[in-house]
């Protein structure tokens, strides 16, 4: 019974909900909270997975607890050990997970540090935009997040974009840096590395990335107009697509996701926004409740 319920929960959070939630306009209306909700869903899935493993290994150490205990169930026969919680198991699982996340984070940090060291020597400082300029014809804008952050523009981007579009692109990157978006991506990326084939991992990771782009877009809108931001997005996205420029640079597999990303962002900028403040509480509740839900379902002692 407990295992069946956990299995159902895993199917719902791992497969059904992610398919329903992908591209949700409600999440896109509050992108940072939406990204947090995806992370909470991933955490919830992991908790359920750990509980399922625990119950599968020690099925009879438990009398039915949590909500399961409220359903009709077979009363255990013979001496029943009280439902004890092995907190050290939880601590061990938590520590192992934290270690994996940290390892992925350290690797990304190392890649950033290496990139930055070379960047600081090769790139030219542009005081006007507070950015580093790479002398390269391919138009691109990106940032190195973290403590010693950098915003990078290529010469191609400086030539392609006008003043206001550049301001929009730079403001967007500062939105990433100020919002510490790389810290949101880290757990999503780790989850995707651990459980690659799962829809929640695949969809969740790209949705978190997209929602963070939207959050950075919103941060940029505090300084620039929607038109400036949208036209900068279009110019840069189309800039590399013209035949002949940087052929074969971007692997084909990533194209589809990336493309829907830009389109979704520009379409979102066209939508009437704002006025969705009321949802804030629901989001926070969801973020807190989701990871606890599997525990309450099958494990919490009931009165």
């Amino acid at each position, binding site marked *: 019974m407990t295992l069946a319920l956990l299995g159902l929960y895993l199917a719902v959070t791992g497969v059904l909900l992610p398919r329903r939630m992908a591209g949700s306009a409600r999440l896109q209306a509050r992108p940072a909270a939406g990204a947090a909700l995806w992370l909470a869903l991933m955490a919830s899935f992991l908790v359920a997975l750990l509980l399922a493993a625990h119950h599968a290994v020690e099925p009879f150490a438990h009398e039915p607890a949590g909500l399961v205990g409220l359903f009709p169930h077979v009363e255990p026969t013979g001496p029943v050990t009280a439902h004890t919680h092995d907190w050290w198991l939880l601590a061990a699982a938590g520590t192992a997970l934290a270690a994996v996340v940290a390892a992925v984070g350290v690797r*990304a940090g190392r890649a950033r540090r290496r*990139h930055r060291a070379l960047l600081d020597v090769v790139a030219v400082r542009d005081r006007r935009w507070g950015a580093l300029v790479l002398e390269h014809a*391919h138009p691109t804008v990106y940032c190195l997040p973290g403590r010693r952050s*950098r915003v990078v523009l290529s010469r191609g981007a400086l030539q392609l974009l006008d003043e206001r579009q550049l301001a929009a692109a730079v403001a967007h990157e500062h939105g990433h840096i100020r919002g510490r978006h790389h810290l949101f991506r880290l757990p999503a990326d780790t989850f995707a590395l651990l459980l690659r084939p799962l829809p929640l991992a695949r969809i969740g990771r790209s949705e978190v990335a997209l929602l963070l782009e939207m959050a950075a877009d919103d941060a940029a809108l505090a300084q620039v107009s929607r038109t400036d931001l*949208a036209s900068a997005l*279009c110019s840069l996205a189309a800039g590399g697509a013209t035949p002949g420029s940087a052929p074969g640079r971007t*692997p084909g597999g990533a194209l589809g996701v990336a493309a829907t990303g830009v*389109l979704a962002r520009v379409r979102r900028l066209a939508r009437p926004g704002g006025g969705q403040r009321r949802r804030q509480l629901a989001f926070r509740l969801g973020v807190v409740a989701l990871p606890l839900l599997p525990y309450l379902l099958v494990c919490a002692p009931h009165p």
Partner: protein
Amino acid sequence: MLRGFGELEAEIMDRLWSWGRPAPVREVVDDLQRQRPVAYTTVTTVADILHTKGWLRRDKVGRAWVYEPTCTREEYTAGLMHQALETTPDRAGALLHFVDRISGDEISALLAALEQVKARDTE
């Protein structure tokens, strides 16, 4: 933005790249000192660091080391751009991009969406 050794590294590399020929530390120090006072030993130390990092190669000419960049500035730039543009899943999150590239047939949909944004802004 840059401080300490990092800035000095950039200045040394910058000079060696723009000269386009091997040069001894003395020459670099003389050129740097036109802008600000800098100690010979400091530049020697930093050049040694750059050599250890693999950015400079050196040969002994007489009693002094003569340094030369291992790669051109353009080669390093191309390498950085490659890192910035590549989207392998394992590396995602190290860099955050403004926008990813799209294919030709999606541009029309994108431009239509852009028109809607413009229409919204002028309302």
